[in-house]
């Protein structure tokens, strides 16, 4: 099996789907000839022509809205929002339109579109290249939200997203595009090639939406994470010596409640980790779910390790980012309770 970076795996997913299905096309800012600022759509214009992979005007509202129109026609557009931080002009189209067209037309019209967005911090991108807006999507009825953490998952999940008949928000943790960054800013990041989950089939395969992945089995505490934070959490677990079970959610909506409940019922403890701001973040939903389903099994209050409730700073990035020491502290706190 070839070893791929997350960029290559995403590119391969698009390639496989464009090859199989004429109704799949992709567009966005700088996506065409240049292949995207992160190169996820590289070579696709050359291979499939400018009508199937093209540059869009700088208007995220228009990108989302025209994709909705195409999806309503019967195509399966995959759009790229250059950075998740730039999705706000598209938000009305995603929330008021894409999410509700099936419902308001009672299945008469549907929107099988995929919205790809690089998201998250750790790249010294300042407040407009670092945000994690997943909770703004999981809060919306009618959207699915997916976040991969490895090349293998990225490809399988993107193919599922493209084949899904509902709109899927596909958030790509850009900090781990080229290697599994584990949260230590001054340590060297190993390339994906050294990671087993970079082994990615060249052809078609799917990873079902709504299925979490237990990336480390353990009995002491359950750590719930997604995206870059899966690797950061694993590093924290390793350094702490605590026998934690680490769950990579992969799909935030619909979330794999069975896997979460089974794990927390076993460990009796839960730490939730995300980069996004804390208040009304996705961790609040996870915390409520765990409390609702596992209250009598819990031995300690649930802990959240998140970005602080401030805009994402530039110079102070490593004071802001939830690094392994903060996760270790939270794990110790639930262990001591």
């Amino acid at each position, binding site marked *: 099996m070839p070893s791929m970076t997350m960029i290559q795996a995403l590119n391969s997913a698009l390639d496989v789907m464009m090859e199989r299905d004429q109704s799949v096309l992709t567009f966005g*800012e700088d996506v065409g000839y240049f292949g995207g*600022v992160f190169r996820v759509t590289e070579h696709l214009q050359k291979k499939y022509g400018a009508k199937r992979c093209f540059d869009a*005007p700088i208007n995220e509202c228009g990108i989302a809205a025209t994709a909705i129109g195409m999806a309503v026609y019967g195509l399966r557009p995959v759009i790229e929002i250059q950075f998740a*931080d730039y999705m706000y002009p598209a938000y009305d189209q995603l929330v008021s339109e894409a999410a509700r067209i099936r419902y308001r037309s009672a299945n008469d019209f549907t929107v099988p579109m995929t919205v790809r967005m690089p998201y998250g911090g750790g790249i*010294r991108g300042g407040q407009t290249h670092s945000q994690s807006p997943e909770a703004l999507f999981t809060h919306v009825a009618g959207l699915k939200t997916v976040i991969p953490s490895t090349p293998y998952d990225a490809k399988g999940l993107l193919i599922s997203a493209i084949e899904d008949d509902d709109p899927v928000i596909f958030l790509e943790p850009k900090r781990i595009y080229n290697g599994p960054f584990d949260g230590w800013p001054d340590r060297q990041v190993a390339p994906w090639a050294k990671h087993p989950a970079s082994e990615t089939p060249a052809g078609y395969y799917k990873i079902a939406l709504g299925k979490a992945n237990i990336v480390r089995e353990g009995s002491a505490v359950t750590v719930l994470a997604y995206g870059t934070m899966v690797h950061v959490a694993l590093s924290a677990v390793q350094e702490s010596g605590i026998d934690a079970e680490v769950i990579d959610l992969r799909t935030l909506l619909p979330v794999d409640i069975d896997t979460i409940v089974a794990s927390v019922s076993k460990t009796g403890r839960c730490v939730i980790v995300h980069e996004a701001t804390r208040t009304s973040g996705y961790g609040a939903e996870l915390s409520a779910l765990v409390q609702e389903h596992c209250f009598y099994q819990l031995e300690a209050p649930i802990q959240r390790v998140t970005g602080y*409730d*401030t805009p994402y700073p530039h110079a*102070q990035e*490593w004071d802001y980012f939830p690094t392994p020491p903060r996760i270790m502290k939270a794990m110790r706190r639930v262990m001591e309770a």
Partner: protein
Amino acid sequence: MNRRTNALDLHVPAPHARPGDKPDFAGWTFPEPGDTPRPEIDASAGDLRDYAYGLIRVLDLDGNASGAWAPSIAAETLRRGLKYMLLTRAFDDRMYRAQRQGKTSFYMQSFGEEAVSIAQALALNVDDMCFPSYRQQGILIARDYPLVTMMNQIYSNAHDPVKGRQLPVMYSSKKDGFFTISGNLATQVPQAVGWAMASAYSGDMRIASAWLGEGSTAEGDFHAAMTFASVYKAPVIINIVNNQWAISSFQGIAGGENTTFAARGVGYGVPPLRVDGNDFLAVYAVTQWAAARARANLGPTLIEHFTYRAGAHSTSDDPSRYRPADEGRAWPLGDPIGRLHDHLVAMGEWSEVQHKQAQEEALETVRAAGREAEKVGVLSVDSAHPPASIFEDVYKEMPWHLQRQRDEAVGG
């Protein structure tokens, strides 16, 4: 796909030249310098329609000025303009290299389009309010903002006025009439209109001016700005800097294949002036015209500055991947510094010796500022700003939950 005869077909614009091709600007025709008449400032938007499709030019390519648009401008002001452009270019060059040397995370040059911000800053009043994009550092430089403070911001060091919070080049200075720059494109344009409406509401004398790239005119915010500016006759100048490239997308992707960017003004009833953006005198003259119109309560003007982005989009970009490497040199309207230099020389107001000396002075000024800023510090993993500082200024008063998060962060 099986295509039926007479079937519909999707059009996707493509530029004339890609890497490896010969640069091709043959499609552009420009009126002769001096040929475009200068209307009265109270001309109706309808009467100004044709300006959207022409090009206001004052300087020819030998440095001679002509026509009704030739501004009456002191030679001393022109020399100042030239020096500011040299300073901006030297500053950009040094900061670009500083990023390459790992002293900061990011940088953006205004290489090739310096005339826009410098000539406009000099044509506006010093207290007019500017709402720039990230490529108008020339405004700050022409308002004599300290270079060392700009560098402190770029290095996010202990003297950075925005306390390390913003990406490099996202300056802010209220006292210099320079609005805090946003990374979200075009948001500042309707805000400038609102500022101008407030100025009119308050019986103030100051006008507003906003800048955005041609690529950014696709954003809805630009169209909101045009609508409000037109409806309320806001005293604002909206400047589209058409440097022909938006990262890798040529101007056709923003609609430039079918019309000019100035023509966006026609539909909104906003006077549309299209100007050679590399012609310092022409940029100065149209700005004076638009400012006089705004100050006379006659409302907004849309200016398209036709120029060329001679450098990379940013330090994260590599333009050789999407456009011919020598395209900038082939741009028929030349370089703004060279053209103002030629004009001053033709007037007998400048010499090669003076030019060389001015270049060296600019370099030395930038070098001295660089030494001073680097002494304070450059960007590193450990921020020069304490962790507690990220919780300040989110609100005027810090709510309990932020106080708690701050205490946790500081407690380690």
